[in-house]
């Protein structure tokens, strides 16, 4: 089967490329004239959605490290969520080994029961 694939794709293309002529027009219009598609042209599914979102400066799938906030009342930690509550694990100080877990609900910002940092739930939709 692999041999059939090779016979199907290689010799005709190699002949065309060697001859420098297009026996038939390129089947795909490539923005990249070299003939190899770009992610913009060919990425699909979740990969495409993540790349498109990152290009717009958004990170709906939490790929990047979360933004740093001071956690004060005026600059609370923003916690994105697709629902109306999300688990938060507060590492009150660097190098702490005990994480403080609590549910963050939408509405008024809540404070960590241990260190008092402010957290605010912000709703966001997943791209479809």
């Amino acid at each position: 089967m692999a041999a059939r694939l090779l016979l199907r794709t290689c010799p005709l293309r190699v002949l065309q490329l060697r001859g420098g002529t297009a026996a038939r027009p390129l089947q795909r219009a490539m923005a990249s004239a070299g003939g190899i598609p770009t992610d913009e042209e060919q990425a699909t599914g979740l990969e495409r959605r993540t790349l498109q979102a990152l290009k717009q400066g958004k990170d709906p799938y939490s790929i990047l490290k979360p933004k740093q906030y001071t956690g004060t009342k005026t600059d609370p930690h923003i916690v994105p969520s697709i629902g109306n509550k999300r688990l938060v694990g507060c590492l009150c100080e660097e190098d702490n080994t005990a994480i403080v877990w609590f549910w963050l609900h939408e509405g008024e910002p809540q404070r960590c029961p241990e260190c008092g940092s402010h957290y605010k739930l912000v709703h966001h939709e997943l791209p479809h």
Partner: protein
Amino acid sequence: MAHQAHAYHMVDPSPWPLTGAVAALLMTSGLAIWMHFHNMTLMSLGLILLLLTMYQWWRDIIREGTFQGHHTPPVQKGLRYGMILFITSEVFFFLGFFWAFYHSSLAPTPELGGCWPPIGITTLNPFEVPLLNTAVLLASGVTVTWAHHSIMEGQRKQAIQSLTLTILLGFYFTALQAMEYYEAPFTIADGVYGSTFFVATGFHGLHVIIGSTFLAVCLLRQAQYHFTSDHHFGFEAAAWYWHFVDVVWLFLYISIYWWGS
């Protein structure tokens, strides 16, 4: 439509891990049966099952990544870690055979004549075919790098040409080495020299064949437009593996062919 809020790939249930495990069982027990009862059936069955497993599992991975878009940047990163760890394990595999070679060659026993190469062994001239083999693999390292840059720069024709050349060089190495094996004045049964020589170079040759196959699959995929200029990890993995094969040969050449002659 998947509604996950993370960028990872939760794989669908698949039968291939099970068939792979069954294949491993059949091959190992089949090997024992072959050795004791001269019957190759079980081992051959295991081998066929292994080949089917590899074909279908990797085909599924290509479907999931290239056609369904599940290989997001974090998933790709995981695949990179995986390939690096696998190659590292192979480095340790070869380290063992180099250990065996140096163990026997640094302190040759009286049975060998107290010297290395042992009495009665006519070694191969390192400046004949082995040197050509070294040049062939080094050149293939250049062509595979050329192929990588071609892909990154979006040059389809050059990518196909350089990748094809790399594979041809790999075949040339294999052919030369096969001829060397046939013409060699010593065999694997010729004491510890024969054992260390053929086991180390033999496993290396097997890895050349595996690497060439991997590159050939990449050539087929490149021809069918699977790779984009930014996302072509399958090719990168094959190129890493090929460089690893090249480096192992360099160590083999310096240690066994040159120093050991």
